[in-house]
């Protein structure tokens, strides 16, 4: 696609439910990243994919968070048993391995009530 696409744009869920967030990277981009942005704060790194492997998962805050990627395409971030502190904007970015610039999607705003 022309840009990084994320869905849904907004998601409201009840505490304790599972949610899946989707990211479609730019075609041909082998690297994919997930970041979390809490209200009024900067972006926190969650996980990095190179192809469909995840060499860096160091930012995942707990075992309730997981992510997978199909080949060099779509990635899903899953949050199980959501808590109110999970409320944030979840941003996805992609880049070519040899290119330092990361292109971001518009994020998914997750609200846990």
């Amino acid at each position: 696609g022309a840009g990084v696409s994320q869905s849904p744009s907004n998601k409201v869920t009840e505490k304790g439910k599972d949610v899946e967030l989707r990211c479609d990277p730019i075609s041909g981009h082998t690297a994919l990243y997930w970041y979390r942005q809490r209200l009024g704060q900067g972006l926190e790194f969650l996980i990095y994919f190179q192809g469909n492997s995840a060499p860096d998962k160091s930012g995942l805050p707990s075992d309730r968070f997981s992510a997978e990627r199909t080949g060099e395409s779509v990635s899903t971030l899953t949050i199980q048993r959501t808590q109110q502190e999970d409320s944030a904007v979840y941003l996805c970015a992609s880049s070519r391995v040899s290119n330092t610039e990361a292109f971001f999607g518009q994020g998914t705003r997750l609200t846990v009530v």
Partner: protein
Amino acid sequence: AQTVTQSQPEMSVQEAETVTLSCTYDTSESDYYLFWYKQPPSRQMILVIRQEAYKQQNATENRFSVNFQKAAKSFSLKISDSQLGDAAMYFCAYKKLTGGGNKLTFGTGTQLKVEL
């Protein structure tokens, strides 16, 4: 671990004037990249300017320029001839040159307001 600090939560500038946003960082690496990203209300992060640490010359992109002071670990962004469309949250970010998986480390941001 690398850290990025933006000490100005908010800044204001009059239209057509110049404003400078501050950023400092901490790293033990000698080679790395520094970035300024703009985040408008649409939430999408837009790259404004990039600086390679091994280059002594400060990067410029039209009305945007940086003052990169490697020894002081300072990386400020100057916006000249400010426009209403420049109003946004601005984030400073750091990335290792090698290793680190291209992970960006961000500051907490500076909200820029542009006034008529």
